[in-house]
């Protein structure tokens, strides 16, 4: 469960207010116009942006002033999730140990994560020899290994074609169900939300609105939502 309690999130001169609860586990889409603050919501939750007011809790734990590494959160960015000079195995292994000195048991777990994401054949490749979809798959394998209860997708599949994006969403969905994750997913495609999200948070005009069930959100959209969706 993720709670923003009277929170004001600051990104440079921009401020986003959020007072909402995302019940977990499950998948919650975050949609809204560009520049409305969708990423700000995620980055603040991950600890990359300061919370100016209020507090943020995850699973009842106050994380407002925790450093990023101490939060029960993994993030996937749209790009640059991998280090170009490390091969797939090493990039995944970073999820366990930043110094890459793994025990045999840990090595086993890395292999397992690669297996689950269908990356075994690519284990020795460098990121520049992977397609965009494969790169994001590696990042998901790492998130799997880190095993944090919250997964944040910051337009993680925005650069992929429709077919590939659907594959990745399915992968996320199966991982989320298996591990009972709470997923917060920023997307530009309302279709993504319809495909896998249980709830939708709408962000506009410096405010993140309380989440609504996906069906209700699209069936009876509020005026601002209708304007954004072009209905």
């Amino acid at each position, binding site marked *: 469960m993720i709670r923003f309690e009277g929170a004001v999130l600051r990104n440079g001169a921009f401020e986003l207010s959020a007072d909402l609860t995302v019940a977990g586990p499950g998948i919650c889409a975050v949609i809204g116009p560009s520049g409305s603050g969708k990423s700000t919501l995620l980055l603040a939750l991950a600890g990359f942006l300061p919370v100016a007011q209020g507090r943020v809790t995850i699973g009842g734990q106050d994380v407002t002033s925790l*450093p990023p590494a101490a939060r029960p959160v993994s993030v996937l960015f749209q790009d640059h999730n991998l280090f*170009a000079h490390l091969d797939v195995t090493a990039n995944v292994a970073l999820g366990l140990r*930043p110094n890459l000195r793994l025990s045999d048991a840990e090595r086993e777990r890395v292999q397992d994560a690669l297996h689950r994401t269908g990356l075994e054949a690519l284990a020795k490749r460098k990121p520049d020899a992977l397609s965009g979809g494969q790169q994001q798959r590696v990042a998901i394998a790492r998130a799997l290994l880190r095993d944090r209860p919250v997964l944040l997708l910051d337009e993680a599949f925005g650069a992929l074609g429709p077919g590939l994006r659907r594959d990745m969403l399915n992968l996320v969905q199966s991982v989320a169900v298996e591990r009972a994750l709470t997923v917060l997913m920023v997307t530009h495609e309302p279709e993504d939300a319809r495909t896998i999200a249980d709830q939708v948070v709408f962000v506009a005009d410096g405010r993140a609105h309380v989440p609504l069930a996906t069906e209700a959100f699209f069936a009876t959209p509020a005026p601002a939502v209708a304007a954004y969706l072009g209905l």
Partner: protein
Amino acid sequence: MKLTGWSGVVIGALILLGCGAAIAALIGVSGGDLTLSAGDLAAIRFTLTQAALSAVGSVLVAVPLARALARRRFWGRNLLVTAMGAPFLLPVLVAVLGLLAIWGRNGVLSTALTAIGAERLNIYGMTGVVMAHLFFNIPLVTRLLLQGWATIPAEHFRLGAQLGFGARARFRLIELPMLRAVLPGAGLLVFLLCITSFAIALTLGGGPKATTVELAIYQAIRFDFDLPRAGLLALIQTGLCLGVATIAMLTGRAGEARAGMIRPVAMMGGAGRWLDFTVIACTTVFLAGPVVAVIVRGVPALIDLPSSVIEAAIRSILVAISSALLSVSAGLMIAIGLVRIGLARPVLARLGEGAMLIVLAISPFVLATGWFILLRGHVDPFAIALPMVVLINALMALPFALRAFVPAVALAQRTDGRLADMLGLTGLARLRHVMLPHVRGPAAFAAGLTAALSMGDLGVIALFGSTTTATLPLVMYQLMGAYRMEAAAGAALLLLILSFGMFAVIDRLGKTHDPV
């Protein structure tokens, strides 16, 4: 008149021919006798040692400095980063005078040392040469590294924060890969610049223990008039430069610009904060000190400058403007030619551009010596000293002009070029309506740069200059040699003002009516 294309090819060919002729003349005069005296060997050894020390030293200081500047945000940071570009335009002699004012026998530090009973400093020789090279190249490497840091995606720093990277892991996994790509090229560039630098060796080096190859060429011509030896040394110098330039080109991997999608975030507080600010403060003092010293000492002398200084200043301004005009018009013509060739034969165009850049690797002294040998007996080289200086300064700045022009011309060709082709615009009309609007900015920048560099250059003029042709840097050098430090300080400040002033004024000309 078909101005577009061909004239540039002809000019480019002439330049390469001129360089080739100079080198051929040197081979001729040296008589193919490649036996080196003990003095020559010592000069080669000193040249390589000081260049290696300067390169390593610049890198050792620049890495922590660039890292600190990349990570921290503070009042005046942008100004400081901009100021790091200034040494490129700073006349070498001005810096030398400033360094002496701080570190010299009668400098600030020596005075302080005698007050506590210690000995005065003596930086002449290796120490001074390396120190002056550090002064010029620490900022250069720092700027190159800052560009490198900017290519690290901000996502990676966030990823590191999320994965719990400590300081070591952050350096090894995020920053070291970038340094590995940028540092070899930066180090080799400094090494090359330090091999060819003349004025620093002339003023702070000298003597059998601290003579560079370039300085030995100067002495062979100016003092001994030993042309075979000058020719041999010039060949050695060319070999050294071309060798280093080749290594630099071979090791230089095209840096992939993979800037992230999110804006970089500065680190506030955190570990290493005090270390970062100490590094920034110390290097700022080291770099700003000499310039401040020149200004402080120069201001009183500025009101009472000797007439020789004023005359030399006027001469220098004329030389600088001529070099700038020559360099920019030749550069524009060559760029148009290269872009035209590039439409049909891209590989040939790239080879041509590479050949033009090689000019940068041939030292001005080598060219001057070669041409001197060719012209001897036909004209009095001392009478044509100034035209020679104009020509060589223009050539030395040509690579910078090309760097600025080729992209602008290519853009003009891609956009308005098609329209001009359809309308049948060629020659001067095409130049005016298609090219000029696009190249005005780069042209002014390149002209300003050339003028400033030419203004402050003490190279070829030291070889052939006389009292009637002395430029401001030469007069300043003579004043320093005669220990007229007051007047030298005044001349230095004037030189400083003129160099930066010319760059600022000319660069601004390109920005006033910007139609693109």
